[in-house]
C-alpha cells in the first residue's frame, strides 16, 4: 500500500507528502510525475515527483489545494494510505550539455521546478532560480532553491517577499545585465509561462516549459492531455510534460484547462462542506 510516511504544510494551501512507493522511487527522474487516487471512488490526478529516495523507497509530492481531490488528499495524514499511485510517468528533464540555466518558477509550479534545479545543480550546471509568488505567505521551498542555485531571485506580486514584480521582470533584468543562459526552464501558471517564452524568444534563448493539462490515464490512451506544439498534436503525458516553449500554443492550452471549471467548483464546494460536517 502507498502509505503516507510524512506530511508537512509548506504554506496555507500547499502541502508536502512523502509516500511509500518503492517501485516508483526506483525509476523516478526529475521532470516526471505520478498519478494518484485517494480512494476507490476517487479521480485520477497527476502530481510531479518533487523528490525521491531510492533507498528508502519513498517519493515526495507537493500539491496545492485547488479542488475536490487535492482537498481530500490534504485531509489524509501520516500512516494513511493512498488507493493508487502510479509512475514514474512522462519524460525526464533533458539535462545533457547544459552549462548555465535559468529556472523560472511561479506559485506551486516551484514545486515542479525545484527537483529540476536540484538535479542540474548536482550535475554541476550553474543554476539561476527566479521564483515568484503572489505574496509572502505563499512562498515555498525558498531554502531548498537557495541551496541549489548560484543566484536566487524571489519576486512577489505585492512586494511582501523579495522584490515587487513579475518573474519576467527579473529574468529580463538578468539577461540584460549580460547573463548568458543556454536554456531557460519555466514552470508555473500558463499565463506566466506564455510571457516567459515570449521574452526568451526575443533574446533567442532556448526555453522549455512544463505543461500541466488535464490528464486521466497518463499513458497515452485518452488524448485528453493533448496540446499543439509547432502545429502538431502532442500528448503531454507521454511526449512531455516538457516542450519547446517557443512552439507551444498557450492560448489553446489555457482554453482547454478551463474545460471543467464549473464542475470542479461545485465538486470542491461539496468536498469542503463534507469536511465541515465531519469537523
Amino acid at each position: 500500500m502507498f502509505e503516507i510516511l510524512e506530511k508537512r504544510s509548506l504554506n496555507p494551501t500547499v502541502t508536502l507528502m512523502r509516500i511509500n512507493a518503492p517501485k516508483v522511487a526506483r525509476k523516478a527522474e526529475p521532470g516526471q510525475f505520478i498519478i494518484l487516487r485517494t480512494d476507490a471512488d476517487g479521480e485520477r490526478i497527476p502530481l510531479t515527483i518533487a523528490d525521491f529516495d531510492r533507498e528508502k523507497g519513498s517519493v515526495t509530492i507537493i500539491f496545492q489545494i485547488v479542488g475536490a481531490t487535492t482537498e481530500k488528499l490534504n485531509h489524509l495524514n501520516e500512516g494513511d494510505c493512498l488507493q493508487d499511485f502510479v509512475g514514474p510517468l512522462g519524460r525526464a528533464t533533458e539535462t545533457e550539455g547544459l552549462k548555465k540555466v535559468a529556472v523560472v518558477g511561479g506559485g506551486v509550479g516551484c514545486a515542479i521546478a525545484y527537483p529540476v534545479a536540484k538535479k542540474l545543480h548536482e550535475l554541476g550546471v550553474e543554476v539561476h532560480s527566479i521564483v515568484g509568488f503572489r505574496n509572502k505567505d505563499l512562498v515555498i521551498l525558498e531554502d531548498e532553491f537557495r541551496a541549489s542555485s548560484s543566484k536566487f531571485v524571489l519576486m512577489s506580486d505585492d512586494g511582501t517577499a523579495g522584490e515587487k514584480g513579475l518573474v519576467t521582470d527579473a529574468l529580463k533584468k538578468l539577461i540584460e545585465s549580460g547573463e548568458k543562459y543556454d536554456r531557460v526552464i519555466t514552470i508555473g501558471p500558463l499565463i506566466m509561462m506564455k510571457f516567459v517564452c515570449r521574452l526568451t524568444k526575443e533574446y533567442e534563448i532556448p526555453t522549455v516549459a512544463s505543461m500541466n493539462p488535464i490528464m486521466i490515464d497518463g499513458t497515452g490512451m485518452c488524448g485528453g492531455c493533448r496540446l499543439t506544439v509547432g502545429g502538431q498534436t502532442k500528448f503531454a503525458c507521454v511526449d512531455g510534460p516538457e516542450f519547446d516553449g517557443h512552439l507551444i500554443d498557450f492560448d489553446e492550452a489555457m482554453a482547454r484547462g478551463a474545460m471543467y471549471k464549473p464542475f470542479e467548483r461545485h465538486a470542491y464546494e461539496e468536498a469542503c462542506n463534507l469536511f465541515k460536517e465531519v469537523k
Partner: protein
Amino acid sequence: MPNMSPTRNEMPVQAPDVRNKNFSEVALGYTEEQAIDEAKRCLNCKNKPCSTGCPVQIDIPAFIAQVAEGNFAEAYKIITKSSSLPAVCGRVCPQETQCESKCVRGIKGEPVAIGRLERFVADWHNAQPEAPVEKPAPNGHKAAVIGSGPSGLACAGDLAKKGYDVTIFEALHVAGGVLSYGIPEFRLPKSIVQKEIGGLKALGVKVETNTVVGKTISVDELMKEEGFESIFIGSGAGLPRFMNIPGENLNGVYSANEFLTRINLMKAYKEGSATPIKAGTKAVIVGGGNVAMDAARCAKRLGAEVYIVYRRTEAELPARAEEVEHAKEEGIIFKFLTNPVEIEATEDGWVKSVHCQQMELSEPDASGRAKPVPIEGAFIDVDADCVIMSIGTSPNPLIKSTTEGLDTQKWGGIIADEDGLTSKEGVYAGGDAVTGAATVILAMGAGKKAAAAMDQYMQNK
C-alpha cells in the same frame, strides 16, 4: 424433433426509451425455456459449418446439443475447452459475421442464436454456487503477462492452469483492458469482467495494477531482475487517432477513449462521481465501429441528442449489427456519406458545429471495396456542443520504445509469428498489440495460443 421455426427466439431487452436513460444491461438474456427452445433449432450438422466461423473453433453443435437436453453444466465444459471468456464473447462477438454467418439454418431463415446460447450457458454457470477451485500444483516456472485485456487474461489463465507462477502487470488501476475501460456497462456488465479476474486470482494469478511496463519497470528488467522466464505482451491498441482537422482541440472534443474511460473506468455517469464528463446537449460521434456505437449510446444516456457521422453507408458500418440496431432504437440519428472537415468554435473556444463534406461511393476498386469520394461543393453543418472522435486506435509505442530487440510494423503493431513469438527470445505477444484494433475473441484466441507456445518454450529451456 428439431424446432423448425425459421425465426430465432427473441432476446428479451429493456424497452428502448427506458434503457436510453440508464446504464443497466440492455439485453436481459434467455430464460432456460427460451434457451432450450432455441437450442432445438440446431440440426447438429456433422461437418459443423458454424464452428469453422468461430475464430477459436468452439464445438458449437456439441454444446448446443447439451443445452437442448438441459445439461447446462456439460455445455459449459464443452465451450470452455476452446474459450476462456464465454460470458464476454457471447455478448460482444460479431456473431453475424462469424459463427452465425455459417449456420445452415441461416439459409432459409434466421441462423441459430449461437452467441445468445453461449451467453446463456456462461451466465447459468456464473449463477451456480462457486465450486472450490483446485489450485494446480506449481511447476516452479515464472511467467509474466503485460496488460489485462482479453488476450492477457486468456494467456494468464491457461498458464496458471498448467502450474506456472503468473503475474499480470496492468497500467491502469483496474484490470480488464477494454472490457473494463471501453465497452460500457449496458453492453457488458463490469461484474462479469471482475468475476473472470476473480477466477484467475483463485487459480493463483497475481494482478499488479498501477504498473506501466516501460516506465515502472521494463520488459528486460522483468526477465533479468525479476526472474520471469517468458513474457506475454497483450498491451492492446489504445492510442487514439485524430483526424487532424482544424478545431479538433477545441473544448468539447473528445477521443472516444477519453469519453468512454471517463464513463466506464471513472464512473462519471454516476451521480456524485469525482470525475467529470460533458456529453453536451447535442453530440456528434465521428466513426462507424463498435466504439462509435458505444460512445453514441453513452452520450444518449447522459441526455444528449446524438448524431453519428460516417463517411460510407449503412452497409459498410463495421459495428456489430445488433449494436447498430440498438442504437437506432434508442433514437440515435445516423448521417451517412458525411465526413467532417472542420470543427467550428464559439467565441469562448467551445465546439459550435461540425462542418462536413458530403460524400458518395465510387465504383468498387480492385479490392472490391467502394471508396467514399467527396461530392464537389456539397457541405453541411451539424450543430454540436460535443464531438467524439471515434476513428480508430493504434498500438501504444511505449513498450516498443523501451524494449531492446522488439520489432514492430511501421504502424506500430508488434511483429509476432503464428504462435505469438516476437523477435525477442522468450517474449510473446498477441491481441490488438499485434493485429491492431480487432475483436475480443481474436485477442482471447491469441492469448491462448501464446500460452501453449510459452509452455513449450519454458519446458524445453
